[in-house]
């Protein structure tokens, strides 16, 4: 037993990206319609898409005859892959916390999302506070470490939340899950939520002015003691500077308008409204502000502020000029966002491309990463999903998923590898049982004497 057994089972070894040609596929590019042809993947990027392509020598051929290829699915609202809780719910403004600090690349939900065609997910802080924690998009590079999951160069975000969730903690009865003895946390009303956000940005403006003055002095060569760095206000300063996106959890039309007005007043933008189930009532105002909307396909009525939800929400907002995406907010729903997109065809009569865009190109635009992902175009990251059937159908199964030109999920390997994994597991279970039985025998024997 001197050897160390390499635990290779969970750690998938990814070789540097190969050159692939995906042949004979129905390619739903999202950006430029659907065509039958091939995709060339080289150095992690899509190098060519077309009915006829130049196949590089030595390229590995993936024959996708009868199959479909779509851009990797992007989930604009997810809470997977984070350790130790996604809510820093103790305070009304928890902007000092950062999902980046707690990325858990070993969360099995990543692999499951991958198996559902998701290649990028926006990992958000929870909705317990008017201003929540810092967020960022991850690529579902299963097997990589925490740093390897991060979507390089993507603009980081921050979570805001309006309505029932943030005000619930202000309920003296403690709200969901909290003991009644716990001191109630401000705010307890929607008015209070607005006030909390305003107060935080008033503070942030003062903080920013302090730092701007210091930076100006430093630029002139005057060196003094810099102001204290405040991790709560830093990200809000970045919001004011346009360096950080606001992703705001919201439901009701009135509070959506409230937030847009507050943002206009303080001179920053709401990048996306999340959930936004009453968005159809104020779609024009949302479009005018330039906010994106990331909603559910047909999830509704799970709380009072979700009663007015309609499944036409996505289509209506889209027709009024809002960039709309469909998200999961859930590790299970995340695994079939393709069929969630399909629902937008039924409710609202969107085209295949428009519907598919709601889980690919549109969330990419909302996250500011559409120069890299979201459609099948030469020069973009080779984040691709191969389905056996029409991908917006419930019956479609993911066959292969590529991220940066590397195969991260392969249905055939997954299925054929299960027996070996099960055997490995059984071996360990049996070994443990044997070891456990041994010490139990000793006292028995002694008693016998």
């Amino acid at each position: 037993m001197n050897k160390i057994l390499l635990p290779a089972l969970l750690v998938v070894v990814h070789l540097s990206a190969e050159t692939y040609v995906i042949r004979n596929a129905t390619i739903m590019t999202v950006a430029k319609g659907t065509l039958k042809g091939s995709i060339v993947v080289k150095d992690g990027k899509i190098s060519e898409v077309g009915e006829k392509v130049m196949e590089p020598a030595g390229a590995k051929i993936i024959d996708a005859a009868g199959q479909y290829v779509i851009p990797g699915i992007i989930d604009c609202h997810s809470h997977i892959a984070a350790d130790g809780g996604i809510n820093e719910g103790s305070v009304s403004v928890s902007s000092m916390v950062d999902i980046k600090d707690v990325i858990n690349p070993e969360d099995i939900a990543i692999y499951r999302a991958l198996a559902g065609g998701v290649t990028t997910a926006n990992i958000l802080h929870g909705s317990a506070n008017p201003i929540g924690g810092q967020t960022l998009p991850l690529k579902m590079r299963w097997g990589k470490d925490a740093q390897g999951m991060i979507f390089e160069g993507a603009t980081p975000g921050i979570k805001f939340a309006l309505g029932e969730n943030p005000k619930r903690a202000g309920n003296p009865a403690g709200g969901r899950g909290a003991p009644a003895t716990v001191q109630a946390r401000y705010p307890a009303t929607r008015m209070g939520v607005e006030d909390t956000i305003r107060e935080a940005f008033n503070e942030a403006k003062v903080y920013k002015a302090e730092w701007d003055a210091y930076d100006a002095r430093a630029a002139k060569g005057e060196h003094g003691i810099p102001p204290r760095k405040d991790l709560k206000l830093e990200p809000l300063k970045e919001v004011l500077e346009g360096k950080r996106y606001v992703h705001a959890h919201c439901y009701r039309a009135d509070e959506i308008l409230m937030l847009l007005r507050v943002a206009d007043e303080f001179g920053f933008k709401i990048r996306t409204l999340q959930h936004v189930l009453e968005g159809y009532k104020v779609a024009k105002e949302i479009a005018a502000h330039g906010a994106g909307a990331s909603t559910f396909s047909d999830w509704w009525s799970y709380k009072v502020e979700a009663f007015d939800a309609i499944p036409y929400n996505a289509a209506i907002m889209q027709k009024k000029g809002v960039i709309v995406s469909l998200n999961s907010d859930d590790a299970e729903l995340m695994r079939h966002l393709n069929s969630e997109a399909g629902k937008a065809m039924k409710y609202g009569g969107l085209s295949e491309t428009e519907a598919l865009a709601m889980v690919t190109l549109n969330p990419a635009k909302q996250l500011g990463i559409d120069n890299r992902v979201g459609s099948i175009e030469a020069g973009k990251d080779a984040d691709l999903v191969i389905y056996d059937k029409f991908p917006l159908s419930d019956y479609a199964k993911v066959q292969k998923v590529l991220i940066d030109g590397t195969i991260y999920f392969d249905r055939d390997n997954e299925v054929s590898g299960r027996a070996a994994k099960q055997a490995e597991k059984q071996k360990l279970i049996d070994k443990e049982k044997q070891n456990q039985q041994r010490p139990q025998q000793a006292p028995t024997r002694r008693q016998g004497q």
Partner: protein
Amino acid sequence: MKQSIAKVLTALLVCRAIALAQSHPAVAISNAKIVTVSGPVIAKGTVVVRNGLIEAVGENVPVPADAMLVEGEGLTVYPGLIDGLSTWGQPYTAPAASTTVTAGRGGRGATTTTTTTTPAAAVPAAVSTVAPARGPEDRPATTSWLKIADEVTFTDRRIESARSAGFTTAVTFPTRGIFAGQGAIIDLLSDAKPGEMVLVPAAGQYISLSRGSGGGGGMGGGFPSALMGVISYIRQIYLDAAHYQLVKDAYARDPRGVERPVYDRALEGVLESKRILLPANRLVEIDRMLRFAAELKQPAILYGGRETFRPEAAALLKKFNTPVLLSMRWPEKPRDADPEDVESLRTLETRDKAAGAPMALQSAGVKYALYSDGLDQPRDLQRAVKKAIDAGLSREDAIRALTLSPAEIFGVADRLGSIEKGKIGNLVVTRGDLFDDHTKVEMILVDGRKYVPAPDAAPTGGRGATTDPGVNR
């Protein structure tokens, strides 16, 4: 039977003689096998301890005329074992160190500790704040200024059982809260003034990622409640400490017309700590904490180390050149586990391979030491080491991981951890090889003071070792 009665009687007599032995100016153990750890093993030699220091060691060292002679024929002398992360010698019971690590997935089994032997008492309860903290400015779960050196006492009953297992030294830490305070390196003496026990009064700041008692996750329990909240709090404290230092220095240079910096004991405690201890068990935690320590620019030691048997973990530790304190509480299947429960392959694998961690770290060239983590019964401690040896660790390396390695990690290898002239006179004398079944600790020297294990203390060595020779046929 007669033999055993005789043994007990002798042992009792020896106990009575302890006080006498302590008054001897010098102890010499001759004709013994000496495992120096820092150098080659001396097959037959003499070691002389005087005034609490090793005066001489070697094959041909003469026995001083005034020394109490211990005939070492058939005996082996080792450096006293060091518990690299401990709560021994404290007047209250702290939870075992690494059980405060956020468990996460694939958690280990038993979390109940066996450290409830001493009465709960005096050390500050400052951690349990009255009002929930509203943010980092309230310094939640922080007693960074606490120095456990000021609290140590020999009345902790675990000291005696630890000595019976061969431990002479412990790096003992306060463990409550996020910034728990500074640990101390202490000698496991009895009947000593607290100050005599302390070898190094400030051994580093113990940091945990949970609030400990009085906190509680979820809403309303006060800041911070989530792991990311704790991490951001620690980050803010170090930013504040750096700023505090700047402001204080400026004020010290010229206080006239300058606003007086507000004294902050939390930041003082952090600034005084020359290293930090961070918890990390899973691979992802090891990765996270190594990067975090680098970001904070603090010399760090990781503790826990459950998944360091994974080559990726060992490689990371090597890359960041960071030592790790490895818990000897190898994960076990929870006793009350649901038999129908299907555990993940990773959990099973971790339980199967965890005791291979010392071997993995050894091969990767990572500096590591073993620590008790709440184990305090000699038999449990010996068994835990044996398990690592069974998983491939050599006996020599096992001994080093409990002597010279912890001394090096805490920067005291110039006075502890091996049998060398001039080092502190901490020795364990055994009949048989340390960690062998049926090996018996005959005598322990702590600071040159002689102690003999209580007769009822279980012998060293593994399972089934018994003092009744009849059972062994």
